[in-house]
């Protein structure tokens, strides 16, 4: 069942805000506290907020478990492939290869305390994004599965 109109309106307003904030945490993982998991968890909580504000049937009509599952898989594959590409360059699995060859993410870093710059740190932002996508898919789909378990017939 839907919750009251006030809660629904509040959730509608908060949803994009939570998403933006989650992506902010994901992308700034190498600069500020946070990273893939934390941001992914925040975004997933945004989805979970939607699950609670609206009824189960309404939500499954708009956000399918299948698509969330696919999102999760995309994140995982992106993660492992990014790590595997390093092998091609003659270095080992999980080497930060983008630090040397990346066109964008190899800005020179200032050492010691500094204000931070978004496009640094090699593949870490890419990894953050991949894990963020994975976690957001996984955590929201698991809540969706559990909600489906509260229905009378499976």
């Amino acid at each position, binding site marked *: 069942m839907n919750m009251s109109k006030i809660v629904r309106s509040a959730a509608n307003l908060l949803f994009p805000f939570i998403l933006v904030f989650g992506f902010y945490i994901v992308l700034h*993982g*190498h*600069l*500020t*506290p*946070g*990273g*893939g998991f934390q941001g992914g968890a925040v975004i997933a909580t945004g989805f979970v907020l939607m699950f609670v504000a609206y009824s189960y049937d309404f939500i499954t009509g708009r956000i399918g*478990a299948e698509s969330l*599952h696919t999102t*999760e898989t995309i*994140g*995982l594959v992106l*993660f*492992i492939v990014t*790590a595997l590409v390093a092998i091609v360059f003659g270095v080992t*699995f*999980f080497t*930060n290869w983008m*630090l040397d060859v990346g066109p964008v993410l*190899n*800005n020179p*870093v200032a*050492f*010691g305390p*500094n204000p*931070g710059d978004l496009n*640094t*740190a*090699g*593949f*870490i932002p890419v*990894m*953050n994004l991949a*894990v963020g996508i*994975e*976690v957001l898919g*996984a*955590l929201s*789909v*698991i809540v969706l*599965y*559990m909600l*489906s*378990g509260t229905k009378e017939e*499976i």
Partner: protein
Amino acid sequence: MKNLVIGATVLILSLGILYAGVGLEFGAPPFTDMDDYFVSHGQEQTGGNNIVTDIVFDFRGFDTLGEATVLFTAVLGAGLAFRKRREDEDYEYE
């Protein structure tokens, strides 16, 4: 009888675990060479300011892959548990 066993178990484990808590020294870890290395070299080797993220994704990236796999596993497991099953699929255990 059983309550006695539970009590003894909890007591002994409490002693052991609490001993572990008291035995470690708070605020002054004895060996810090690995972490010192991360703090002093992490920024130049990975370019990230947040050392924790550097460790999570670069130095110990494989753990992160494993942990993402755990999450994937849990999703698959929950999906299997709540899947729609056919009528004749269940086996009656006697």
